[in-house]
C-alpha cells in the first residue's frame, strides 16, 4: 500500500478562530439567515408563490409616509442628540467642570443610553404627560405647555423622549474620541501661534468630524429601529414604520405578513445605506487618528 506523505507545511490550529466561533455563529443565526429569509419572503405571497405585490405595496399610503416619518424623527434626534452629546463631551474634555461631575456624567450616559422602551415612555408620561409632574409644576407657574400646543404623544414629544437615550450615546462615544486627540497636535498648534479656539476650529474639530458624523449615523439607526418606546408612548398614533410592521405582523389591520416582510426589507436597506456611510467615515477617522 502506498502512503503519501504530505509535504505541505502543517497549518497550526489557531485559537483565535475558536474564539471567533460564537461571533460567526451569532452572525449567521441572527443576521444572515433572517435577512435571507426576509428577502425571500418579501417576494412571496401567502401561498408561497413568487410575487412583486409586496414590493409594489410599499408605495401604497400610508407606508411611504411612515418611512418618511421614521426617517425624519431619526434624523432630527440624531442631529440634535449628536450636537448636545458632543457639546457635553467637549465641555467634559475642556477640564473646567467640577471634579465630581466626571464619573457622574459617564455613569449617567451609560445607563441612559440603554434606557428605552416601556420604562422610558412611562417616565416621560409621568413628567411631561398631560397630567405629568413637570407639566403640573409649569402650569402652576402659569406656563400651560399643553395650552401652547405641546403634546407628548406627537412628533416633538417622541423626539424629546428619544433624545433621552440619543445624546448619552453620543456622549459615551465622543468622550474617548476626544481623548484620542494627541496632546502633540494641540501643542504643535499652540507652538505655531494658534489660540485654543484656532486649534479647535482648524485641527481638533475637523479631526473629530468623521467620528461625529459616523456616530450620528449610529444614532439615526438607533432611533430608526426603535419600536417599544414609540408604541408604549403613542400607542398607534404616530405611524412610524416599525409600528406599521408591528401592526401587519400582529394582524391588527390587513394582516398581510408578507407585506410586513417587504416593509422590514426596506428598513434593512435604509440601515444598510447608513452603515456604508458609517464605515466610510470610520475609515477616514481611523486613518487620521491612528
Amino acid at each position, binding site marked *: 500500500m502506498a502512503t503519501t506523505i504530505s509535504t505541505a507545511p502543517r497549518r497550526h490550529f489557531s485559537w483565535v478562530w475558536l474564539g471567533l466561533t460564537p461571533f460567526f455563529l451569532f452572525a449567521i443565526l441572527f443576521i444572515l439567515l433572517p435577512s435571507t429569509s426576509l428577502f425571500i419572503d418579501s417576494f412571496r405571497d401567502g401561498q408561497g408563490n413568487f410575487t412583486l405585490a409586496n414590493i409594489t405595496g410599499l408605495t401604497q399610503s400610508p407606508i411611504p409616509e411612515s418611512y418618511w416619518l421614521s426617517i425624519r424623527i431619526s434624523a432630527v434626534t440624531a442631529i440634535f442628540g449628536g450636537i448636545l452629546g458632543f457639546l457635553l463631551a467637549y465641555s467634559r474634555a475642556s477640564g473646567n467642570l467640577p471634579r465630581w461631575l466626571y464619573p457622574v456624567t459617564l455613569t449617567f450616559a451609560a445607563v441612559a443610553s440603554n434606557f428605552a422602551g416601556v420604562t422610558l415612555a412611562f417616565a416621560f408620561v409621568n413628567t411631561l404627560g398631560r397630567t405629568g409632574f413637570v407639566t403640573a409644576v409649569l402650569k402652576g407657574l402659569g406656563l400651560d405647555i399643553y395650552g401652547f400646543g405641546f403634546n407628548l404623544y406627537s412628533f416633538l414629544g417622541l423626539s424629546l423622549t428619544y433624545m433621552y437615550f440619543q445624546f448619552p450615546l453620543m456622549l459615551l462615544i465622543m468622550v474617548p474620541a476626544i481623548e484620542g486627540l*494627541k496632546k502633540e*497636535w494641540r501643542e*504643535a498648534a499652540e507652538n*505655531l*501661534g494658534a*489660540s485654543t479656539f484656532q486649534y479647535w476650529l*482648524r485641527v481638533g474639530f475637523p479631526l473629530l468630524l468623521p467620528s461625529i458624523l459616523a456616530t450620528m449615523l449610529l444614532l439615526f439607526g438607533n432611533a430608526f429601529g426603535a419600536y417599544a418606546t414609540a408604541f408604549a408612548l403613542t400607542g398607534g398614533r404616530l405611524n412610524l414604520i416599525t409600528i406599521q410592521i408591528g401592526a401587519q405582523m400582529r394582524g391588527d389591520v390587513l394582516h398581510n405578513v408578507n407585506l410586513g416582510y417587504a416593509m422590514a426589507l426596506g428598513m434593512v436597506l435604509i440601515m444598510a445605506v447608513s452603515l456604508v456611510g458609517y464605515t466610510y467615515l470610520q475609515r477616514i477617522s481611523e486613518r487620521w487618528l*491612528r
Partner: protein
Amino acid sequence: MAFLELTNVRKVFPNAQTPAVEDFNLNVNAGEFVSFLGPSGCGKTTTLRMIAGFETATSGSIVMDGRDITPIRPNQRNIGMVFQSYALFPNMNVADNIGFGLKVGGKSKPEIKERVGEMLALIKLEELGNRYPYQLSGGQQQRVALARAIAIRPQLLLLDEPLSALDAKIRLSLRNEIRSIQRQLGITTVYVTHDQEEALSLSDRVVVMNRGLIEQVGPPFEIYNFPTTEFVASFVGTLNLLKVKVIDPATGAIQVDGQTFFTGRPLVNHAAGETAQIALRPGIVQSRQHGARR
C-alpha cells in the same frame, strides 16, 4: 549677552520625589547649535518644554533675546518646535501643515503660498505639497514637521529626539539635512537626543545631563576626549576606565602598573602621587618607540 539664558532653572513635578531638572544654567549664543544629551528620564524633554512654554519652571529664569519669557504663553513665544512623533495635523495636506502657523498668524494667502513654496524647496519635497501625512514615510513627515516649525521664522528652534522614530539609514541622512538647514538659516537651535553620536556630530556644544543635573557642557571634542565626570566618560562612547597614579600633573604624566604614560594635556585638579581614574578610548593610544616618552 547670550541669546538664550537659562539661570538656576528647576522643575519639580507635583508629587514627584526628586526634581526633574535642577541647577540648570546654560547660555546659548545666537546661531549656535546646542544638544542636550543624556539617558532617558534625565530631564532633557522637561527642560526643552520649559523653553517652549509647555511646562512652567518651578524656579529660575529663562531669558530669550534679552526678554524674560517665563510669563509668556507658548503661542506668543515665536519658538519653533519639532516633536519626536512628528505631530503633523492629519486632516491637512503637507502645504497646509507647513502654512498653518502663518495662517493662524493672519498672513495673506499669497504670502503663505510663497513661504510654503520656499519651505518645500528647503526640505526638497516640492512635489509632495498635496499629499497627506499618512501618505508619507516617517522621514518625509519629519522633514515636513521641520519645515512647519521653520516657516513661522522662529527666533529659536527646538527639536526633541526628532530622529528616534526613524530607521538608521534615514536617521543619518536627515541628521545631516537638519544640520545643513540650520547652518543655512543660522537659526539658534536646541536639540535633544539620547544618542551620543548624534549629539557629537551635530552640535557646536553638547550639554550632557544625568538625573536632572548638567554633568558637563562643551564642544563635542572636549566632551569626547576630556570628560570631566565618570558619568560623561562612560555615557559618551566606548571606553575603558583605569585607576592610575598621577606622577606629574603639569605634564600629564601618569603611571599604570609601573609604566609611565602621558595624557594629552595637563591634569588640573590633581596632585602628584594621587590616585585618579582615567578613561581610555580604544584607537587613540599612541606609542612612541624612539622618543623620550613611551
